[in-house]
């Protein structure tokens, strides 16, 4: 029934203490961190995925493997966060969208502060299912038939959650929930920006689904932009 259309998989009780570590408030004279993530090594050749099912809908465009995209030496879809920030800007929980159009998750990686509601969209008119492979959060596996255009899931605790569709084996994407609101996903040019950061010294982390984590120390001065460049080596 439609009152359940916006189904929320919540574990609000357990989530509270985990989030207590970060304290949000007003930031005065905040600076910012911006930069880019470079890929070191030979970029892999783009791999075409085999669409063996629901071809009329899913096969309209060629499906490429999204798990490692390098554009002009820049690493796309890497998640940049500040791992050790305890105080900073207020967490504003806005709904984010995760679109399955054409049997592909767009964006491939979505990052947001924990507690955010993700709106999963199904414009395809066929059955998908949203199957999370989470360990920290409660794992879910929700069917999204044709008549259910949107489905809401809430990621309560910080974790990089892989999402797959069992109907279409090639479909996979990531919902990355973080403790603080300082999180960005690198764009086509491998760049990112974290703004309104209180002056101070922080650990900035880059995470990529295939390449793992790497960190750097960054010092932010009031009202100034701190530039940082990451170099992540291919495996």
């Amino acid at each position, binding site marked *: *029934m439609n009152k359940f259309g916006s*189904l929320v998989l919540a574990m609000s009780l357990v989530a509270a203490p985990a989030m207590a570590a970060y304290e949000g408030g007003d930031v005065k004279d905040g600076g910012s961190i911006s930069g880019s993530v470079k890929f070191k090594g030979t970029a892999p050749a783009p791999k075409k995925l085999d669409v063996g099912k629901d071809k009329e809908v899913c096969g309209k465009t060629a499906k490429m493997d999204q798990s490692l995209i390098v554009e002009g030496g820049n690493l796309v879809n890497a998640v940049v966060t500040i791992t050790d920030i305890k105080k900073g800007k207020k967490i504003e929980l806005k709904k984010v969208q995760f679109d399955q159009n054409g049997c592909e998750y767009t964006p491939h990686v979505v990052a947001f502060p924990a507690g955010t509601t993700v709106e999963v969209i199904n414009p395809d008119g066929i059955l998908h*299912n949203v199957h999370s492979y989470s360990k920290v959060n409660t794992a879910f596996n*929700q069917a999204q*038939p044709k008549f259910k255009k949107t489905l809401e899931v809430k990621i309560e605790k910080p974790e990089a959650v892989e999402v797959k569709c069992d*109907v279409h084996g090639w479909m996979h994407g990531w919902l990355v929930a973080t403790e603080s609101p300082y999180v960005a996903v690198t764009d086509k040019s491998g760049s990112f920006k974290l703004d309104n950061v209180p002056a101070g010294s922080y650990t900035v982390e880059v995470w990529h689904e295939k390449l793992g984590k790497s960190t750097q120390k960054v010092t932010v001065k009031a009202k100034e932009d701190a530039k940082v460049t990451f170099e992540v080596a291919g495996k």
Partner: protein
Amino acid sequence: MAERGVDQKEEKKSYGSVFVLGAGILAALSLWAFLDDNITRRPWKGFQAKFYRLDYNKAQAAYDEEDKKLQADDKYKELSQKLAAFQASLADGEVGKKLNSQIAEEARVTVKFQEADQKVKDVKSELEEAWYEHDHAVQQKRKIEPYLEVIAALDKKKAVLDKELEPIREKRNQLKDEIKKIQSGAKEIETELVKMTGERDKWIRVMENVTFKLGPFTFPKIPKIQQVSLDEFDRNRFDQPVARVDRCQTCHLAINRPGFEKEANPYKTHPRREVLLADSAHSPDKIGCTGCHEGQGMAVNGVKQAHGDVHLWEFPLLRGAKVQSSCTSCHQDVQKFAEDAPLLAEGQRLFEQVGCTGCHLVKGYENIPKIAPSLKKISAKVDPGWMVRWIENPHKFRQRTRMPNFDLKPDDALAVAAYIWSQSKEEADQWTQTHPAPAGFREGDPNDIAKGKKLVETIGCKGCHGFADGEFSTPLGKSKDLVPNLKDIAAKVVGPQWIYHWIKNPRGFEPETRMPSLRLSDDEALSITNYLMSLGGRPDPVAGIQEKLADAKNIKRGEVLVRKWGCFGCHDIKGMEKESRIGAELTTFGSKTVEELGFGNRTDVKHTWDDWTYFKLKTPRGYATERIEQLMPQFNLHDDDIKALRTLLGGFRERKVGQRYLADQGLRVQQVVEGRRLMQQYNCVGCHEIEKQGGFVRKYYQENVALAPPPLNGQGEKVQSSWFYSFLKSPTTLRPWLEIRMPTFGFSDEHTTQLVNYFNGLSKVEQPYHYIDDRKFPAENLEAAKILASAEYFNCFSCHVQGGKNPEGPKEGWAPDLAMARQRLNPNWIIKWLKDPQKIQPGAKMPSFYPGGPDNILGGKEDRQIEALRDYLMSIGRGAAPAAAAAPQVPAKAKPAK
């Protein structure tokens, strides 16, 4: 002048000092007697007094804390003020005055009411009388009119009086109500306050519990023995039921109370109290402590005495993990205690699977089948030289084998081999003749070997066997392999001919083997044979071995040795069918006293049951002397495994606990125990997760768990027993996308029934059979479900096979054929599954469709939609019988295990 009879001197003498001294001694003695009686000889009184203080102080602290919280609570403040104000006003304020006047008024009105009421009653009796006179006149046929006149007059009078009474009654009731209202004005506040103060005031009761009041004074409670009497718990030497008395809680006062977890003993709370004690499991007030922990339950005059750590007391306190031994006194099923009695559960599995029962008889373990292969055709199977070396010391070839080392001299090993070899010769030769070398075998062909290797890795061999150093599926303790590791198999066997026929049809060679058939095609069997023949070098030929094995002298000597060492305890050997176990019976081994155990000449072993047993398992012949030979072979068990076995042995006691104290001994428990044992023998857990344990083969499927064998948690509830029975007998393909195969075990009828009962017992299935009556499916349901299942809605056949019609896409994305549901699934399980698949099988590929069903079908009522889907699933696949996969020839003689 001297006075007669009076000695002045004597008269004047004072005995005061003697009396003082005497009185002093008496007083001292009394004091000493008092102290000795109350303190020296009653140490428990000290323990209790100390505990009561501890309990009181803890309660006081808890009370203060709660009180602080309440005082800071504005609502509490407001309510108590309201209550106080009301009570003050009731005592001598406005409300009090009003109440008093009301009460006085009510008393006045009551008098008035009673007077008026009396008048009514009087008239009523007059009326009765008048009617009587009237009736009398009727009977005597007199005139009745005068009587009727009297009655009419009285009726009138009553009506008047009634009218007068009514307002008085009303007034009185009204007054009563008002009084009640005033008096209960505080009730609501009081109830709310009690609700708020409950958490705090419960501590008052705790404090009251450990004190008593005398006038205005409060004293700590007087110490008292706390005893639990268990009627008919034990049996005496004449097998009569006798009571057991436990006084342990005289000192261990907080054993079943939360909040003392961090105190030191004896005041500590029992570990995992909620699970192990509480009121449900082992309430100490109902079953005491010594039933599990032993010790001298009645003794209270000293810690050592109470704990039974005194000379000649046979049951000293079982500390730490040793207490696990006791579970078997009352529980039949201890395997389910993997969490709370891990050593015991592990010890039992080792005991059953390492082969202890081959030599030792223990009540309850008599029917465990021989764990080792039959040797009736051994000469068709193994290389003769290998066999002699193996008998000499099996651990040299396979370190983790279950076969123990008998430490035989080379010529003894040869003699044993000669006897066994000669006994098998006839049957083996016959078998070899009827099972010729396979045609088309390309020995050493690397492509074929690679193909065989691939098969071994995919079709399920690895669910049981290891094929490299340290590789195994189901662990057996820390040092043993349940199933042989085949990394050197080519060095053991006669040759490819045997392997080929064996893997194609194991029961064709050994009718009672646990090795199942994987329904190999000839080609598959050839490739696997080729692969196996590539593992390990071929055995070194031993010159003249055949002649030595055929030597009559060796054979004769071998027969004596086989009898002596009891090889038939684990192996079937022709000619040894009637032999019985050669070891000592162990049914009451745990009750043996140190005096009954022989320590031989060993001086390094402490004289305790524990140490004796540990070293017996560690160095089995360690207690032998020049005059006493010991036969037990060396198992090379890991220390942890020895400790686990010892825990089980400790529970083999000469003890019969009273019926009423036994845990569930019903048929169902028996079925679970029996079935699980069988399940473990056949190593179902090698592939399947059962009871949330096992599924060891999954480690090879981490990339894609969907390709591993399905977990069988809750299997009894999921499937129909009749289907399950047939499936176990002859497995059919349920999941065509799996490369791993459910083997054909060739279970006997009895074993199949036992396995079905096991799963049903675990799931507590009451009704194993289901009759599907098509007439009972509402047409409306079937219509609705068809729509629900369609691509417009749930699109079930996007993944599920539909009556043999495969879905689109790669095989690993498929799901079982829904046409099988009618024969296979329990209709009630389908409902549960559709409601929440993840709850039944975490990680299942099947997504949850509910909550979230469509609004426009069956009025949007989800329960009805789910029922409709169930009806639909049960209605399709009508008449379709499960197609049996080709099963290999199983000899009819598969008799049940002994």
